[in-house]
């Protein structure tokens, strides 16, 4: 298969839910970035992996410079197939592209990282979408070469392994993984790899904070390195988010004009009563929360700005109206927000759907991101973010942050919920003042011990899905 040669050089590792990576003001914490350079086959990747394994960070990505080999001219390409092209020269890389990806990752944004087809000596048409790493490791022979890339790194490591060992590893790797023949590899080594190392790679050792002799075998050095990184990460870790968000609200605070509440009609109050009633059957609970979801959605859609248009009626008379928003993405915050997708499906025909799974930590109840899948078109249109309940606003903050990280404009986000506290709405509006918030019910009774709405409907997801204890 032709695609065997396209090896994803980017490795995204997730070991657990991701804790908040931003502060209560909604701003992203800087991502911790490690650069790992060293000669070809010196063991950079192994060192990078060892660092990742040892760090107690749930979402980490290792980006290889192999992803950023530039496109060759037809003549260069011909030479490459004759093993006559110098891939070990600094000019073999597309630094603009590398910079774009690394800058995105450093700012916590979703990015797409190119992939390289080693059999075709050309960038593949495919790319890999990467999002959510709190630590980024950038490794490659020229990882410590470009000054702009260097300026973004928090820790710069050079792996200095004996050149005999490097050559032996390189022959083995290129034969088995990259379908080259040994003679060609040796030719290439003499002509390009060795001179490049001496001329360009070794000098970047001066840019390193730490030099690790003997690569992966040097457990003492690697251990020291990991301890240092861990200390720096610990110093950055956030205080608990939920209590902080709840505390920042004062009763005299007004919710901004971008907060909209469904009018408190008789029907809405009657539905609220049914949902709040502990004795309501599950069947009724589902029916009335679906009905209320649809009302919130219709009401919320009424807050979108639309483009005017004029049509002609069958009576041959013009009618001045509006066009529906052309590109709407509904993003549900699972589990409980998922129930609102049904209502969206019944009102917005060509909607795209994104999903985010946020789960409370069993001990602290702090939000943890477990899964995110958003359509690429999300950045260009209106986004309807949906969750059943906003209590502290911590989950909502995370969801909005994810949308922004995926290129969505704040003013295009409409956050919709069945039930909210003023504390939670205030938390969203303080962090993201241009986001519109639409709710059906507002209730201010928060229980201090577990931060649930006291007078509310209890745990929405449990009652809807029937998973109460």
């Amino acid at each position, binding site marked *: 298969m032709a695609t065997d040669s396209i090896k994803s050089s980017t490795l995204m590792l997730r070991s657990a839910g991701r804790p908040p990576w931003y502060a209560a003001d909604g701003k992203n914490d800087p991502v911790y970035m490690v650069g790992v350079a060293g000669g070809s086959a010196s063991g950079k990747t192994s060192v990078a992996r060892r660092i990742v394994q040892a760090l107690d960070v749930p979402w980490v990505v290792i980006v290889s410079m192999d992803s950023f080999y530039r496109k060759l001219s037809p003549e260069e390409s011909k030479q490459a197939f004759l093993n006559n092209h110098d891939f070990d020269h600094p000019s073999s890389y597309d630094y603009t592209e590398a910079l774009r990806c690394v800058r995105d990752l450093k700012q916590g944004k979703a990015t797409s990282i190119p992939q390289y087809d080693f059999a075709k000596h050309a960038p593949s048409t495919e790319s890999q979408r990467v999002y959510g790493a709190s630590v980024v490791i950038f490794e490659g022979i020229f990882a410590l070469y470009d000054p702009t890339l260097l300026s973004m790194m928090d820790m710069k490591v050079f792996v200095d392994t004996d050149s005999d060992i490097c050559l032996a590893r390189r022959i083995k790797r290129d034969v088995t993984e990259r379908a080259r023949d040994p003679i060609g590899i040796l030719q290439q080594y003499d002509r390009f790899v060795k001179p490049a190392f001496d001329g360009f790679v070794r000098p970047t050792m001066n840019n390193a904070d730490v030099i690790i002799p003997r690569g992966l075998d040097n457990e003492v050095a690697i251990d020291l390195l990991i301890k240092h990184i861990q200390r720096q990460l610990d110093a950055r870790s956030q205080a608990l988010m939920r209590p902080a968000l709840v505390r920042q609200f004062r009763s005299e605070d007004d919710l901004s004009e971008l907060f909209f509440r469904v009018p408190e009609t008789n029907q809405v109050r009657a539905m609220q009563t049914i949902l709040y009633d502990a004795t309501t059957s599950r069947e009724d609970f589902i029916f009335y929360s679906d009905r209320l979801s649809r009302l919130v959605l*219709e009401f919320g859609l009424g807050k979108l700005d639309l483009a005017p248009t004029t049509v002609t009626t069958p009576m041959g008379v013009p009618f001045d109206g509006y066009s529906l928003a052309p590109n709407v993405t509904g993003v549900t915050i699972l589990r409980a927000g998922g129930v609102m997708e049904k209502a969206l499906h019944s009102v917005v025909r060509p909607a795209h759907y994104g999903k985010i799974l946020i789960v409370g930590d069993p001990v602290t109840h702090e939000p943890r991101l477990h899964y995110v899948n958003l359509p690429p078109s999300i950045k260009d249109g209106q986004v309807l973010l949906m969750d059943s309940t906003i209590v502290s606003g911590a989950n909502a903050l995370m969801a909005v942050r994810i949308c922004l990280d995926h290129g969505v404009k704040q003013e295009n986000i409409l956050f919709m919920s069945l039930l909210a506290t003023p504390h939670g709405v205030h938390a969203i509006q303080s962090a993201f003042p241009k986001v519109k918030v639409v709710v059906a019910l507002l209730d201010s009774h928060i229980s201090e011990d577990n931060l649930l709405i006291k007078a509310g409907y209890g*745990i929405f997801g449990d009652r809807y899905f029937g998973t109460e204890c």
Partner: protein
Amino acid sequence: MSSLAAQVAEHPRFHLLPQSNQLKALMTIIRDKNTKRSDFVFYSDRVIRLLVEEGLNYLPVVEKEVTTPMGVPFKGVSFEGRICGVSIMRAGESMEQGLRDVCTSVRIGKVLIQRDERTALPTLYYSKLPKDIADRWVLLLDPMLATGGSAIKCAEVLKEAGVKEDHILFINLICSPEGALHMLEKFPGLQIISAEVDEGMDERKFILPGLGDFGDRYFGTED
């Protein structure tokens, strides 16, 4: 808006849906003569659902206290009064599903009223109403209110069956100002819920700008 239309919109027994851009966009689609039928049905259904939800707000509620799952008392309200739907055939039947989606297993009566070609008057051809309709609130369903001829005839049929005038909520998508005013004057208890008030009618008594024949477009029987 014409002065007659403004007069309708301000009438205390006339309730217009909140006029959002979104509603206007829905009405734009169903008014557009180039809209294909599946879209016409989908977006009409959406407006109908909004109308039904709005209509139900004019039904009475009573105070009710419940206990939440957190063990806290909550003072709320509960629905009071029994309801039924009555659709004016054929176009009014398009609104039945919208009512059923909100009030599952609601009783629905049907009335067929057509113009008698000899007298030019709306004439009752068929009616089948729930037996206890006199004790119920009636949501009267007909998507277009033009002259009001059929709707007035239907309201008379309901009153003969014992329905109280102030227990009738007439729900439609588009009304002419003349038709709405006529109806409100003729039945001083009845309320009207509508999505939009149009400018008027042509000489054939079609609403302008209107949307053509609703029944034909909804059921796909246009030429």
